[in-house]
């Protein structure tokens, strides 16, 4: 298609989802992602598709559960406190193995927090969030273009593995405007949805969408099946960007989303001072791209510096994979503050001189 337009992040999410054949949107307003719902409210009816403003985030995610169970592509969108409310439904969707897209445009927390950008939902997104042993693929774009491209991919991954997928941005990515191009991308072959429950329509047996297993042996088997699926996702779907890490570098920054963009500026600024800095940028937060760290761990002289808009959440995954082979430092801001390049550079300078503590 290739039409380049200037779009706000939240509206680009809506347009990308429509182009990915999303048939139903169920949502509830919450800053800073309300424009996703507004965009869908305008566009979906024009296309004969479904938009429902639910009475709550809880209802919205359960509407997704209902629609996803019929086999149509569907989604919801929210921001941090709203995602907490959706956690119940996400657990059920994971348990019932339904494909759908959940957008989280993260704001500061805990509690009502702020409406400014943050990355403090990392644990919630990647370590379950709802109850029970489950995971879901979490895509973390760093530009509006990437956000658009990953929405198609997230829907495909959801269908391929029968899993909810999350697109996790932050308030900055949601609210900024950038030029975007909508491509026709190569699509993977997707399995038939013969499990869908939308009426027998001639089928001999009834389909049931369910996550209840009263027999513990059956539930364990179901859990083992889910874990096997998660292993496949870990093996096949981890995504990352390695930037400026060729040869030996002094420090490698580890950052995703908006923070990784700030880090790219830091790399330029550091180069002017003769400090060689690289970046590992996870694009999927779950599965965590361990490979990107394996590939770079021998290249960094003083180790890694995790930069996050949180108290330090992703750093735990970085430390797990680095496993003591190199030091891992941390620089973070909270409460809706975006780390500024000067502060990160000061930290880099300090580490390059003194070594990562």
């Amino acid at each position: 298609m290739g039409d380049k337009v200037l779009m706000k992040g939240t509206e680009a999410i809506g347009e990308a989802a429509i182009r990915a054949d999303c048939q139903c949107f169920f949502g509830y307003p919450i800053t800073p992602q309300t424009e996703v719902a507004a965009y869908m409210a305008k566009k979906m009816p024009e296309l004969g598709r479904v938009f429902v403003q639910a009475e709550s985030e809880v209802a919205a995610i359960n509407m997704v559960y209902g629609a996803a169970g019929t086999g149509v592509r569907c989604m919801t969108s929210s921001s941090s406190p709203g995602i907490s409310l959706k956690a119940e439904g996400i657990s059920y969707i994971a348990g019932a193995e339904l494909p759908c897209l959940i957008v989280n445009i993260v704001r500061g927390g805990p509690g009502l927090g702020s409406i400014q950008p943050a990355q403090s939902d990392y644990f919630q997104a990647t370590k379950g969030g709802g109850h029970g042993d489950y995971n879901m693929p979490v895509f973390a774009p760093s530009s509006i273009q990437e956000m658009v491209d990953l929405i198609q991919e997230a829907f495909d991954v959801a269908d391929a593995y029968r899993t909810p997928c999350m697109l996790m941005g932050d308030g900055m990515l949601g609210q900024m405007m950038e030029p975007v191009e909508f491509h026709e991308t190569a699509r993977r072959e997707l399995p038939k949805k013969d499990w869908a429950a939308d009426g027998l329509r001639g089928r001999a047996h009834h389909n049931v969408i369910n996550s209840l297993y009263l027999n513990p042996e059956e539930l364990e088997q179901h859990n083992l099946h889910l874990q096997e699926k998660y292993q496949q996702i870990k093996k096949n779907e981890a995504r990352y960007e390695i930037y400026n890490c060729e040869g030996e570098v002094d420090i490698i920054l580890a950052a995703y989303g908006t923070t990784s963009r700030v880090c790219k500026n830091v790399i330029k600024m550091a180069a002017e001072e003769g400090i060689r800095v690289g970046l590992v940028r996870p694009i999927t937060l779950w599965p965590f791209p361990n490979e990107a760290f394996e590939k770079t761990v021998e290249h960094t002289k003083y180790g890694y510096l995790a930069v996050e808009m949180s108290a330090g959440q992703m750093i735990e995954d970085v430390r797990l994979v680095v496993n003591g082979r190199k030091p891992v430092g941390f620089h973070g801001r909270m409460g809706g503050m975006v780390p500024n390049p000067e502060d990160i550079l000061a930290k880099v300078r300090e580490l390059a001189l003194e070594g990562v503590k």
Partner: protein
Amino acid sequence: MALTFEKPKGLTDVPTHYCPGCTHGIIHRLIAEVVDELGVLDKTVGVAPVGCSVLAYDYFSCDMYEAAHGRAPAVATGIKRAKPDATVFTYQGDGDLAAIGTAEIVHAATRGEKITTVFVNNAIYGMTGGQMAPTSLPGQVTETSPYGRNTGLAGYPIRVSEMISTLDGASYVERVSVDSVKNVMRAKKAIKKAFEYQIAGKGFSMVEVLSTCPTNWGLSPTEALTWLRDNMMPYYPLGVKKDIGEED
């Protein structure tokens, strides 16, 4: 010999787990008969609740969903919006619908979702072992109202049908009972009408069914029917609460 009575096609050949004297089995059968008679089994989708009827998805032979506690009307909304030609019903108890799921039922009704809810009211939480429900009667002794429901402390029962009937999106709301043959026949007629209204696209329809819980009421099945008549019917009067009839 001519066959005079058989299991409706809408039910599977699975024995139910319900307690002796519980009327869930009758209500299941009525829904299945209605689905058969309306010829919509092939496109009917049911949503089971959390509570005693949590396994209803095993008993109905149409496509089924198991919803989270109270969320059945939201799940049904998703199904119906995604597949508007499907006939969608929720089957919900009083804890599910009148406590944790109050928001979902009120808003599904007020949106005029073209779904049908069968609301089974037995004035108690059955599955968890007889605790006070939003529908437990003033003075009723339950596990969590051991001195009798004190309205000063625990508030009053919710008359769900009367409440839902005030909402513009509701097309048909009736309260029935399955305590006698006559009332079972009336209940079936109401359930059929509720499904017909949905199929005609008239909006949200609901049938509240007064039901027994001999186990948790601590009564024999026949005593339970008497208790229902003597105590529930005066508080929850039977009859049509709303019917938009031929209106659009």
